[in-house]
């Protein structure tokens, strides 16, 4: 217990090692460890959360590093959460996003953490929401979240951040691709990276045309992340989006939606663990009825759910 108290003290005093440890504890998926978050609760200041998503190799990590660098230059404290896919077979992963971080690694006020997706299919990892909360409580001004390489439908990131940057590159598809539902709809800022390649302007124009048919005007920018071309415009665009959201109440709405969703998921996970144990207890001795076909699992499940609720 002493160890735990020491950890809480170190965390509150701004020790990054303590932060790294608590991130691991939360990531381990131990629901109890989430109680630690209560000890770190901090009123008032909230971090600005920026998500970066897009296909593998589009330049998300390089762009994330450049964004982080610009924010650090303005004196902000920045956390980067970099998510790479875990193997569905072994659970192992190569987390290689740090390779793009050499220019900023070691700067003060910066924390970088790589995470495996560990079976989540929405482009993030199940542990991301509580880890974001930890980072917010630690006092970062900005948290940049980079998803795994995404295709068309991995849209979890919008439930986790304030602003979503969708990154694409020239040559991935025609103007019909740009009309499809899914990941394109969640962009607050759209970026065509590798703009020194042939077709970048056309890709940007196609995206603009497609986005214009929608309800809001999402800016379409072009960048060359490796050299930093277009990055200042991206920062300005994100700043403007943030200020607009702050002014028109959208930011508060997004945060409320995010917190409600996380709260529901956590409450549901606590009940489902207890419910599963209880159902197993009730089934003891009665499984033969189901096995023989005398009772079907849906009637049985409904009866058990009703009894479980009565027991509350």
């Amino acid at each position, binding site marked *: 217990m002493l160890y735990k108290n020491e950890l809480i003290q170190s965390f509150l005093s701004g020790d990054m*090692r303590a932060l790294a440890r608590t991130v691991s504890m939360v990531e*381990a998926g131990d629901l109890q460890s989430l109680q630690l978050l209560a000890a770190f609760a901090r009123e008032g200041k909230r971090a600005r959360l920026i998500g970066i998503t897009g296909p593998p190799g589009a330049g998300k990590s390089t762009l994330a590093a450049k964004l982080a660098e610009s924010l650090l230059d303005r004196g902000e404290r920045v956390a980067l959460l970099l998510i790479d896919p875990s193997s569905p077979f*072994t659970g192992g992963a190569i*987390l290689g996003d740090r390779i793009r971080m*050499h220019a900023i690694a070691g700067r003060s006020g910066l924390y970088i953490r790589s995470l495996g997706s560990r079976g989540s299919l929405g482009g993030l990892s199940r542990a991301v929401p509580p880890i974001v909360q930890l980072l917010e409580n630690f006092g970062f001004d900005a948290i940049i979240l980079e998803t795994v390489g995404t295709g068309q439908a991995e849209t979890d990131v919008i439930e986790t951040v304030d602003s979503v940057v969708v990154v694409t590159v020239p040559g991935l598809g025609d103007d019909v691709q740009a009309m499809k539902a899914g990941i394109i709809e969640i962009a607050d800022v759209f970026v065509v990276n590798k703009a020194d390649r042939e077709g970048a302007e056309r890709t940007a124009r196609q995206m603009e045309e497609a986005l214009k048919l929608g309800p809001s005007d999402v800016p379409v920018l072009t960048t060359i992340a490796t050299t930093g071309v277009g990055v200042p415009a991206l920062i300005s665009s994100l700043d403007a989006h943030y200020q607009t959201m702050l002014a028109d109440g959208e930011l508060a709405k997004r945060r409320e939606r995010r917190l409600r969703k996380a709260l529901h998921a956590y409450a549901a996970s606590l009940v489902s663990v207890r419910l599963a144990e209880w159902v197993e207890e009730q089934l003891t001795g009665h499984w033969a009825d189901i096995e023989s076909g005398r009772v079907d699992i849906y009637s049985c499940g409904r009866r058990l759910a009703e009894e479980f609720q009565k027991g509350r």
Partner: protein
Amino acid sequence: MSQRSFIRVLVAKPGLDGHDRGAKIVARALRDAGMEVIYTGLRQTPEQIVEAALQEDVDVVALSCLSGAHNYLFPKVVELLRQQGGADILVLGGGVIPEEDIPALKQSGVKEIFTPGTTTQAIVEFIRAHAIQK
């Protein structure tokens, strides 16, 4: 406090050599053994490696060096880890390391040295046996 189910390993290339085929093969083998491998790329200073290890909260730091500077770089990583609260992290070394350098490297706190010809399975097994999982 719960123990996590994954072993996390930082595979790092300290120093100035540009050969990371060995490091990548090891990284891939550890991945296939179910570990989470953070690969940081070429030409890292001991300071950068230690900072990454602590921020990523890894159980193991696996160093690969083919430049001949292992006698300086490996012990330096161990020393910095100890200074900064990472004494429990298992440090391993690999590369073209002369036989006569190995005792002193182990003395300095590098737990094991793997030289050319080592099977990846031997490295996996060593890590499973010696990593202190958090």
